[in-house]
């Protein structure tokens, strides 16, 4: 089968940890997760703490190894990548994480993240070329070079630091961004700016894996939504369908718990109780069952 360029594919990925004395117990953090991210697609990975959503992000970035299953990018299993091939992979796939303040070394100026990238990937670039490139990347994330270059991390706001990290990823011309809770630490007014930025980057063809616990943020930005519970996908589908017709009992309970401005929790619960979800049978042992086009749900386990 021929794979499209720049497609990330997870195929029944599992991650388990050995815990306890001499690793006597095994804890499964991620169980049989399969999905794809196409170029220009924003896929939201939504789950509560401990659902394994960050683990999936780290496995894609090869910060963690998969225990079972494969992650392939451009048709190549990323576990096999080494040296130059791995470096090329990182030129395509980068991650940005939750806390912008701890992503920087406070002793050095914030733009050191650019300098380090230059040393690794663009050692031949001339100063003026590099400067122009940095400015273009900063412009793409709506930052003004004079405001942010040559400053220490504490002199910049959380939103600026987070955007600098995205700009750093853009310098590499990446094709997939793993964004792990990148706006949870930001204020409401800055949050939406970073989200809009992701939307603009997507329009230019960047694929984004948007990892979050916040259902409304995922709804705003994503094309595809996955709901993760205890390491397993319980519902996956196109975002309007998952939000418009939540089917798994866990998804429905989550949706009813989201605090909203114009709808009280009581109303949400009443609405939830008034409708009954489509019955999803798991008789043939399928992990996910299609309830409608582009909308798959895991059978309920009693």
């Amino acid at each position, binding site marked *: 089968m021929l794979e499209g360029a720049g497609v990330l594919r997870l195929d029944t990925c599992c991650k388990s940890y050995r815990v306890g004395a001499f690793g006597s117990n095994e804890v499964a953090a991620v169980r049989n997760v399969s999905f794809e991210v196409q170029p220009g697609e924003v896929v939201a990975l939504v789950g*509560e703490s401990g659902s394994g959503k960050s683990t999936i992000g780290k496995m894609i970035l090869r910060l963690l190894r998969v225990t079972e299953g494969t992650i392939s990018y451009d048709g190549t299993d990323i576990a096999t990548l080494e040296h130059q091939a791995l470096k090329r992979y990182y030129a395509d796939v980068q991650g940005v994480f939750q806390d912008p303040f701890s992503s920087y070394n406070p002793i050095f100026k914030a733009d050191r993240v650019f300098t380090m990238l230059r040393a690794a990937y663009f050692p031949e670039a001339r100063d003026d070329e590099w400067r122009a490139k940095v400015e273009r990347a900063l412009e793409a994330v709506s930052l003004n070079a004079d405001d942010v270059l040559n400053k220490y991390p504490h002199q910049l706001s959380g939103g600026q630091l987070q955007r600098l990290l995205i700009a750093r990823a853009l310098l590499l011309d990446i094709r997939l961004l793993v964004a792990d809770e990148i706006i949870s630490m930001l204020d409401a007014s800055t949050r939406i700016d970073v989200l809009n930025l992701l939307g603009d980057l997507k329009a230019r063809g960047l694929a984004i894996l948007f990892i979050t616990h916040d259902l409304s943020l995922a709804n705003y930005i994503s094309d595809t939504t996955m709901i993760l519970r205890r390491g397993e996908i319980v519902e996956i589908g196109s975002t309007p369908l998952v939000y418009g017709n939540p089917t798994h009992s866990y998804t429905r309970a989550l949706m009813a718990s989201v605090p909203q*401005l114009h709808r009280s929790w009581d109303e949400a619960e009443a609405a939830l109780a008034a409708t009954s979800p489509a019955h999803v049978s798991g008789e043939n042992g399928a992990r996910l069952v299609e309830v409608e086009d582009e909308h798959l749900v895991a059978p309920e386990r009693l």
Partner: protein
Amino acid sequence: MSLRVDGLTVYYQSLRGDVKAVDGATFDVADGEIMGLAGESGCGKSTLGKGLIRLDARMRYVGGRVELDGHELPIADDARMNQYRLKEVSLIPQYALSALNPTRKIGRMATDLLHARGVDPHTVLPELRRRLQLVGLSEDVLDRYPMELSGGMKQRVVMVLSSVLDPSLLIADEVTSALDVSTQKAVARLLVEFRDRGFVKSIIVITHDLSVLAQIADTVMVMYAGKLAEKASTHAIVGAPQHPYTSMLLAALPEVGVRFADRRLAGIPGRPPSLLNPPAGCRFRERCPFAEARCAHEPPFVEVGPGQQAACWKVPAC
């Protein structure tokens, strides 16, 4: 009137000068009122909450009066405040769940806390056990270490502990942040239940999350850069905000159903001013689309409607 704050001003001392974190806050909280205190990080909301119970070493009382149930609270006097803490005013500090001493069992912490306030723990323990059960915890948690409890359980323990002496005012600083949505809902609802059962008379809920306040608060007060911007019933804040800052803050919230592809929400351009040297006049005017010449003078925080106060020249006083 349960709490009456008049011109409360609290600064932080820093090497570069005073950080004017709370500047002339004047407001009331009625008996039985759950008041939400909202604003972006660094707007002074936590400082205001802490200022009502304990000023830490970096904080300096500059002026203002705080009255609780008709008694003036000696907030500038750390020692004299002791008789009010936990009994009359109680605070659930930010990150309380990670501040529990990891080497002490919950029960030991509870007795230590009560001893420190001069209360005989034996008189309170039965009630403490009853309330732990009420919030869905077994009394065994008293024999557990904090690391044995989940985030939601710890937050519940902290809430029960801080309200066990039935204080008149409970200040809950970001108690619903850092929790999953289902736990967040349970914890937020507990606050309402504590009020309904009379464990506390009124509550100030400090959070940056306006949608949680929309669920549980009776009134919402919005702060911006150390100043009060607006206070009104939750219904009015959510439905008819008067201050431009409140409106813009609400407009920047992506709600379920709003999608980037259909409607692009706008953030608030710019950043809050430094509180070391805040600009004269309205502190929001740099970022405000309606700013005009008179905004160089500070707008007073006045009544603009029934039960609604705002500090903006654009909003006609009534």
